[in-house]
């Protein structure tokens, strides 16, 4: 080998020693993970990338390693804080040392991670999605739908094997009120890369037969890490806003929320809470019916009671009413008989008066009275009253009547 040549190993060793001498510090690096996998040896291998401002092409790339010991320390902290596992597509802020190995080349050793950066990035992504939905004017579309009064036909989007789905069905079936719910599962992948397309397909299938359902429930049981950012999708959120049925979201996370929580008609924490929500709706209706039943029977009872009361009162008043009526009639009779008596008395008196009058008039005609006044009556011998001279011839015997007797005489 000529003196001015070096072996590859020597060159790499040179690079390594230069790097180790000049870049011995640890650096806080902000980058995106394009690969992330836990190897069977316990080490966690990643690939860091940086894209240009358009976000389409890579401008930098580096392999990275989280050695098993470090991984066991920082991974649980990261998962606890973010609710996410380290995975491809995620933006991270990690503390790295630069290393170069003669055989494996350039690599970054991760010594620490800052979960708040990732959380901030996820929150920013959510904000961007929500802002876009707002700008599209569809953010609250699903919330403006009204749940029907009767909610019993439920289209469920979940994965068949998920514990959350089983809990949901069990709880609906064995509710305390005897409520009946009809559920049908529209299976979807609820974790990983295919969440978006798979849930979108399930929603489309439900929308196609919307008249068969009262509402949609999207549920997934929560695990230690939920990878909620699978649901932070503009297309998924937009699809929910445009569903013709109210959508209830319960994707099982206690701490965090996804954009779906902001667009769904109703958000609940867990599948069990989703079931409780539906049962409560039914229970409210049952209570309403119970109340109506009570009002109706109460009103009918009151009306009948009022009628009884009225009748009782009438019966109680009856003797009094009868007595009053009798008294009134008696009084009327008395009055009548009095009027009758008075009328009779008046009539008798009138007759008496008339009689007296008649008597007076009659007495004026009495001849005895005329005789006493000085008049006298002349009669023929055979007793005829002499009223003219012509009746008397000379020699006739005449009788003259005075009040105190009769004188005989003879005409000359």
């Amino acid at each position, binding site marked *: 080998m000529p003196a001015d040549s070096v072996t590859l190993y020597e060159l790499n060793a040179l690079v390594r020693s230069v790097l180790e001498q000049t870049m011995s510090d640890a650096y806080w690096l902000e980058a995106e993970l394009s690969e992330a996998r836990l190897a069977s040896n316990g080490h966690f291998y990643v690939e860091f990338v940086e894209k240009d401002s358009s976000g389409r092409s890579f401008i930098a790339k580096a392999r990275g390693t989280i050695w098993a010991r470090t991984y066991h320390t920082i991974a649980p902290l990261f998962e606890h804080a973010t609710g996410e596992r380290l995975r491809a597509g995620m933006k991270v802020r990690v503390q790295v040392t630069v290393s170069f190995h003669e055989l494996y080349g350039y690599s970054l050793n991760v010594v620490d991670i800052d979960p708040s950066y990732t959380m901030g990035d996820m929150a920013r992504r959510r904000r961007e999605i929500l802002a876009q939905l707002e700008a599209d004017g569809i953010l609250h579309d699903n919330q403006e739908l009204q749940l029907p*009064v009767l909610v019993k036909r439920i289209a469920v989007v979940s994965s068949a094997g998920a514990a959350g789905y089983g809990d949901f069905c069990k709880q609906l079936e064995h509710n305390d009120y005897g409520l009946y719910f*009809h559920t049908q599962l529209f299976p979807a992948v609820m974790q990983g890369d295919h969440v978006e397309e798979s849930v979108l397909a399930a929603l489309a299938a439900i929308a196609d037969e919307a008249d068969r359902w009262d509402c949609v429930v999207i549920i997934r049981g929560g695990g230690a890490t939920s990878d909620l950012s699978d649901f932070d999708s503009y297309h998924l959120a937009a699809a929910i806003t445009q569903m013709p049925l109210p959508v209830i979201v319960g994707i099982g996370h206690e701490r965090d929320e996804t954009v779906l929580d902001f667009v769904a008609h109703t958000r609940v924490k867990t599948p069990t809470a989703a079931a409780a929500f539906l049962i409560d709706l039914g229970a409210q*209706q049952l209570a309403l019916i119970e109340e109506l039943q009570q*009002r*109706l029977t109460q009103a*009918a009872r009151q009306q*009948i009671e*009022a009628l009884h009361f009225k009748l009782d009162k009438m019966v109680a008043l009856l003797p009094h009413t009868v007595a009053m009526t009798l008294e009134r009639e008696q009084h009327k009779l008395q009055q009548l008989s009095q009027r009758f008596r008075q009328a009779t008395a008046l009539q008798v008196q009138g007759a008496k008066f008339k009689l007296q009058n008649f008597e007076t008039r009659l007495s004026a005609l009495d001849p005895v009275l005329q005789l006493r006044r000085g008049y006298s009556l002349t009669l023929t011998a055979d007793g005829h009253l002499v009223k003219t001279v012509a009746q008397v011839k000379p020699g006739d015997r005449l009788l003259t009547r005075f009040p105190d007797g009769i004188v005989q005489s003879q005409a000359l």
Partner: protein
Amino acid sequence: MNTEDLTYEAALAQLEKLAREMEAGEVPIDLLAAKLKEAQTLLAFCKAKLTKADEEVKKLLGE
């Protein structure tokens, strides 16, 4: 009473109307029994809607 084409909501509205009428004493006593019977039918219908599978659902389940 025919409840075949009746919806739960319509039945509920009828019940509410009946309750108001009866509470206001607007139901003549001669009709009280008939109205009560109607109400009972509607109540039973509503309860069944909440607690039983509909014919349509039964058909779907039978498929």
